[in-house]
């Protein structure tokens, strides 16, 4: 079974979402932003629901981390 495609653009309005995400973080302390991100991950993951897609996203995020020194 091939891994779900998480590379292809699926957003209708990518720039719009990115801007909304930034706005969502406005006025937050660093600590609040970390919590906000974690809450978002859980909300979005519940919307996505598909275990294979979720795992592919986890893998892709981990793989995209910069190499540590």
């Amino acid at each position, binding site marked *: 079974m091939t891994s779900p495609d998480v590379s292809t653009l699926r957003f209708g309005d990518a720039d719009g979402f990115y801007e909304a995400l930034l706005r969502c973080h406005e006025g937050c302390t660093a600590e609040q932003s*970390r*919590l906000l991100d*974690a*809450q978002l*991950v*859980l*909300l979005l993951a*519940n919307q996505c629901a598909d275990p294979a897609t979720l795992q592919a996203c986890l893998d892709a995020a981990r793989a995209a981390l910069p190499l540590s020194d």
Partner: protein
Amino acid sequence: MGQTARKGRTIFAGMNHPSPGPEPVADGGYELPEYPFVEPPDLHAAAPRRYPVVIVGAGLAGLTLAADLSQRGVHCVVLDEDNTIGVRGASSRGIVYVQRTLEIMRRLGLYERIRAKGVTWSAGKILAGDEVLYEYDFQPASISEQPPFINLQQFYLEWYLVDRIIELGQAELRWKNRVVGAENHTDHVTLQVETPAGPYTLEADWVIAADGVNSSVRHLLQLPEHTERGHDRWCITDVRFQRTRLNERWTWVEAPFNENRAVWQHLMADDVWRLDFQMAPDADPAEVSRPDVARERVARMLGPDVAFDLVWVGPYSYRTMLMERFRHGRLMFIGDAAHAKSPFGARGGNSGIQDADNLGWKLALVLAGDAPEGLLDDFDAERHRAAEENIRVTGRSGRFLQPRSEAEFVLRRAVLQLARHHAFARTLLNTGRLCVPHHYRSLPTVGPSEADGKAIANIALHRSGQPCHLVDVLAEGRPVAFAFGVPRAPLQAALAAAGLPVRVVELDDEMVDTHGLLARETGTPHGGIALIRPDSHLSASLATGDADALVCAARRALGHKELP
């Protein structure tokens, strides 16, 4: 260490029934009964005596197996290094007995005592301060004769088991008999035993080690296991106080009165409350169990004006341990001796009891020559996978309750925040997933249907016009083939011709599926057959009444590996 339960009166087991049990004493604790040491006849035997079954360890798993075998008419000897029920020191202190356990105890004839003494409950809350994040109730979905849970101090259940074993009169309980040597041979096991009157050696066709997480038998034979120590520290602080009786389980993930660490509050018998406090990872067990420190901790929780007695203080940490195999020829391991885990979800004592329930009928059939020894490999395969699952599930709870990093802590905080507003997030609040019977699906020991391998609840039926329950029908010890509108006689004849000890019961004839639950739970259509094992697990659901298919399923249920 902070233990107020203590030894006292001697109980002359077997001379009166029921025996005097644990008694609350004036300072809030309990006095546990002591059973007398009786010199075993082996001490003066010229050569080692041979026994069919020896069980090492009189804890929940060992005693359940002894009661189960006794009920099946199988003689056994139980060796225990101690002379009392309950456990010494800062060891396991189970309180929650789950539905499957209660159904097993119903079959073993001690459910009524448990129900009368214990606290029946089904609902709980997860709180943040005074705010309820999540409420649950298992009763509405329950179809069993037994309730979802009963809380009871572990020593009461062990006491009832000892009484029942004595009443059945098939097992010899040998207190103060400590196993100090073991040799595992092809067709028997030899044990060296120390007693207050001297040492002796015995031989057993079968030995079941139920001697706890520090199993002597496992250590003596250096059998392979994998252990992982937990770093989380807890301190049980059982107290008795007057408060409105509230049969609910309350859990705080971050309790403001416990430095934002977790706390459990749960009622047991005799109006004793189990309060379990998560401690700082570097907490000193001696310090946190000092009576004045324990009292202060409880006062912070209950408020300064509530008077209470300390009943028992027990600091603990936990470990995860899994033996590579539970069966080693004529030697088998059950309960904590085979697998240990954190207490979250009450999966320790309950799974040990379920090990005994899985093994008892199989061992009895093998001993009677009604099933091949291979049936005992099925015990290994099934209970090993159950233990793997219990360790996986409790490990997730443990990690939720003790985040390992800043990132894990932030994620947990996110769950707590979202849970206030969103239903989906409440299911992520993992304060322990309460023990459910393992579904043996897809193992070669059960059939291929989706329902094959699941435990069937103790549902209501009618037999010869009289109400009864599933465990009553299964108590006899053989697997039962429930035939839904299929004539009984040809099926029973086919099983008899194949030499398979399976009883066929024809629905709508001698038995009535009163609420249609047997058909629904087993997924068996009219004209089909549900083969249910003595431990209430569905072995196979057959879509038709074909006798050959039933014979095939029965052979699999009874451990016949080769094709007929």
